[in-house]
């Protein structure tokens, strides 16, 4: 196999660990419902919400946590969340209908993203808060409200292009939001439409893991809100979007060792670690490493609610150096967040059945073919490298030596690889075994899945614990009353 196995073991908290320790259940489920099969764990979502709430509490901040619905289409997750006090952030007409149908009242819904007239109308009709990207969108909304005699709409102004003082930060351009430099005409338009829109706050969302960039944007928002107040407007919220991240791996040492060896593999110092010598963005030029590692930082000691805590504790350099949380609090602003991936941490897994295991004559990694397409397990699409867990069909089978494998999908397509990485498994899988991909609920379950080649997308079920027993139902059968009633 060439050296020690390079594991990237998934981080498993108690619920996912307990599920993976129930091989009979998992085989029964996939036997009945097919492979691939998605499991979601609604109760975990409620626990994750509590972690975000406790960070709010620590900083004495009020305001709403809006779950970014786009991360997962599950009804069970949404309905479980409706039973808490959280909000939901919807980015399409369908998501808005889904949220309203799941029990979210309009005061707990924010509509964001690109909007068509139907989406805008339903949002305005039901009085959900609308986050507006441009002045054009504001004009469009105002015209719609007047034409259809709808109630005054609460709006958030989404901003972008924040400038830091002293140092220019080369942030990625966002195609969403109004540049701060064009604030004046935007606020003039808000004042012009004051009879039909009520500006309740400003918003930003930056696609970055950098705390400093987000701090710059938050400071920029505080300045904009001050500008709003000086014009006599009375906004009271800052929506800082999401992007708090997830820690996927259990062991930082494994991640560091893996990335170092990947670097060496690209440089040719050690044998390849990927199918076809893929470098995940890295390449070798005359023995020097070039390019950028295009991977999600799968081991993140500071992620989710902890990341929010660090951001809020970050000093606001241009406003006297007090932490951002203190700035929000002292200015009497509510903090709104839109976590997606982070709220879905540990909220689900994807089961796939092993169809074939073929050893290579040349002695390289074995080829493992799964009853799933690459788009059914979209970890690779998000740059997340994480090992699946082998769930043997017969637990009595003797354990074997660790093996190196390549994971192929079921499409008739050369490039249908679940991952281009050589995966090391602690035991050799056999046909009929399951490979369980943990922590797929955030963006990696149904975001990319297709029905290409008339192959099915995964069914989705909700699972919960009653005492020591796992119960389940189809995702769209789940309601917050289901676990209590024990209906199956």
């Amino acid at each position: 196999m060439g050296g020690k196995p390079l594991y990237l073991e998934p981080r498993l908290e108690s619920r996912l660990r307990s599920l993976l320790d129930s091989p009979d259940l998992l085989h029964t489920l996939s036997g009945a419902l097919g492979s691939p099969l998605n499991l979601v764990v609604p109760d975990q979502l409620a626990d994750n919400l509590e972690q975000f709430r406790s960070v709010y509490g620590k900083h004495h901040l009020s305001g709403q946590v809006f779950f970014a619905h786009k991360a997962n289409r599950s009804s069970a997750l949404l309905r479980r969340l409706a039973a808490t006090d959280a909000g939901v952030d919807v980015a399409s007409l369908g998501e808005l209908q889904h949220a309203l149908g799941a029990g979210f009242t309009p005061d707990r819904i924010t509509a964001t993203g690109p909007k068509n007239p139907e989406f805008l109308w339903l949002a305005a009709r039901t009085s959900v808060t609308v986050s507006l990207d441009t002045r054009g969108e504001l004009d469009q909304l105002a015209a719609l409200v007047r034409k259809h005699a709808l109630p005054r709409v609460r709006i958030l102004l989404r901003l972008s292009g924040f400038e830091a003082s002293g140092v220019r930060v080369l942030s990625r351009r966002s195609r969403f939001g109004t540049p701060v430099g064009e604030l004046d005409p935007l606020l003039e338009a808000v004042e012009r439409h004051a009879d039909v829109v009520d500006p309740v706050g400003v918003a930003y969302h930056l696609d970055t893991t950098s705390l400093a960039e987000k701090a710059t944007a938050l400071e920029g928002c505080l300045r904009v809100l001050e500008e709003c107040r000086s014009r006599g407007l009375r906004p009271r919220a800052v929506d800082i979007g999401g992007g708090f991240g997830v820690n996927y791996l259990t062991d930082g040492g494994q991640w560091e060792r893996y990335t170092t060896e990947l670097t060496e593999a690209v440089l040719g110092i050690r044998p390849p670690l990927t199918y076809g010598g893929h470098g995940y963005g890295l390449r070798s030029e005359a023995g020097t490493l070039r390019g950028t590692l295009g991977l999600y930082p799968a081991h993140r000691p500071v992620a989710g609610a902890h990341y929010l805590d660090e951001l809020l504790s970050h000093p606001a350099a241009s406003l006297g150096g007090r932490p951002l949380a203190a700035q929000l609090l002292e200015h009497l602003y509510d903090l709104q967040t839109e976590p997606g991936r982070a709220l879905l941490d540990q909220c689900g897994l994807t089961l796939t059945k092993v169809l074939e295991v073929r050893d290579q004559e040349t002695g390289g990694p074995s080829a493992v073919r799964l009853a799933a397409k690459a788009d059914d397990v979209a970890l690779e699409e998000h740059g997340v490298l994480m090992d699946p867990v082998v769930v043997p069909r017969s637990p009595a089978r003797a354990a074997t030596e660790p093996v190196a494998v390549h994971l192929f999908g079921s499409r008739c397509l050369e490039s249908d690889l679940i991952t281009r990485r050589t995966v090391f498994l602690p035991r050799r899988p056999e046909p009929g075994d399951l490979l369980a991909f943990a922590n797929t609920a955030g963006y990696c379950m149904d975001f990319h899945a297709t029905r290409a080649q008339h192959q099915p997308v995964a069914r989705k079920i909700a699972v919960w614990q009653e005492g020591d027993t796992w119960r389940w139902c189809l995702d769209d059968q789940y309601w917050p009353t289901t676990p209590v009633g024990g209906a199956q």
Partner: protein
Amino acid sequence: MRYDSITEAIGNTPLVRIDPAVHGLGRIDLYAKLELLNPFGSVKDRAAWNMARPHLTAAASATAEGAGQVVELSSGNTAKALAVLAGMHGLTFKSVTNRMRIPEIKDLLLLLGAEIEELPGQSECLDPTATDDPLTLFHRALSEPDSTLLHTDQYFNPRNTEAHFTGTGPEIVKDLDGRAPDWFIACVGTAGSSTGVARALREHDPAVRVVGLVAAKSDFIPGIRTIDEAHEVGLFDPGTYDTIESVSADEAIEGMLTLNRRCGILAGPTGGAAYFGAVRQLRALDENLTERQSAVFIVCDRVESYLSYVRHRRPDLFGRPRRRNSPADLSDAEIRTAPAITVADAQAWIGTGEPLVVDLRSPYAYAALHIDGSVNIVDELFEELLHGGLPFSRNRPVLLACPVGEKSARYAALLTRMGHPEVRSLTGGIIAWRDAGAPLVRD
């Protein structure tokens, strides 16, 4: 010593023997090459000057019309040296970096007139096909036909290594009476100094053993790369080093403290890492030696720029004496029982015109909205005032207000303890005040 230009003061740094009582090596003489004594403060002065000199001479001989801008990907000492050198020659300097994590260096660069561009953090929603990463755009800008950017390219420029091959290395041999040391230990940043010195020393004596030090992968030591990052450096060749070892940030600071406190060498963490790595490497060897050997390590730069870095990792080093009248001294019971007043009662009390209302929030928040007639003393300043005693007379009642009534309760307790008879904390703070519909004004 008289010079016509500060650039002549670059190089010819002292080689200082470390007292054996400090490092405890019996048979090895350990020397520090004090690169921190270069005029702009670091070993990078040599490389910066050697790389920039041809550009600067050419730019100076070109006619005016905004001669151009020196650019470099640097987060620290190279940027500092280049900023000074560019300024001396009438050019501007821009640093593009994602590694500038030391606030003092950032401020110093701005003070020197440098422009800083920071690369953004990694994308949270990864697009594996993205082609517009800022570093690519930077290189594209450099190669545009009418570009006036002078890129010194420290990670690939052979003139970086050359500065040490012709300067630092031969100076060491000269100071050791014409002999190369048995060991040379250096941290790997751009790999310029370690590669250049190693080459010079080996040319003199091929038996010299070279130890390269990299940062432990999860750690951050300014000026040192991790082994993965070293592979991105064009000048880095693993073959230069007989061994490559890693040093942690804690070890670097430990070494730095020894140099600072026991040797009178005000080295920064990089120099500390080199000292620590050197002693660790040599200790095992020392016992078995039959004849004396010598070793040299490089002290890259000075400690002053890294105070916040050290404070973050070793707050214990900055312990200050306790001060009187500090809110930290209060017991939970004192805070819980601090005199307080509800919004409705506070409104009535203020109506009598009696209490002085002190708003403890920041001036920005106060300016935005506050209770009419209140005085703004931000809590940090208030704490400072209280160390000196009561800032207002005992017969003037005081109402303290903060966002949620938490800080005001602390200070109400403290003022009570200090003997003020009539101080109250606004329960629920300005937020409760607002939520009760009580008036807030802007002036």
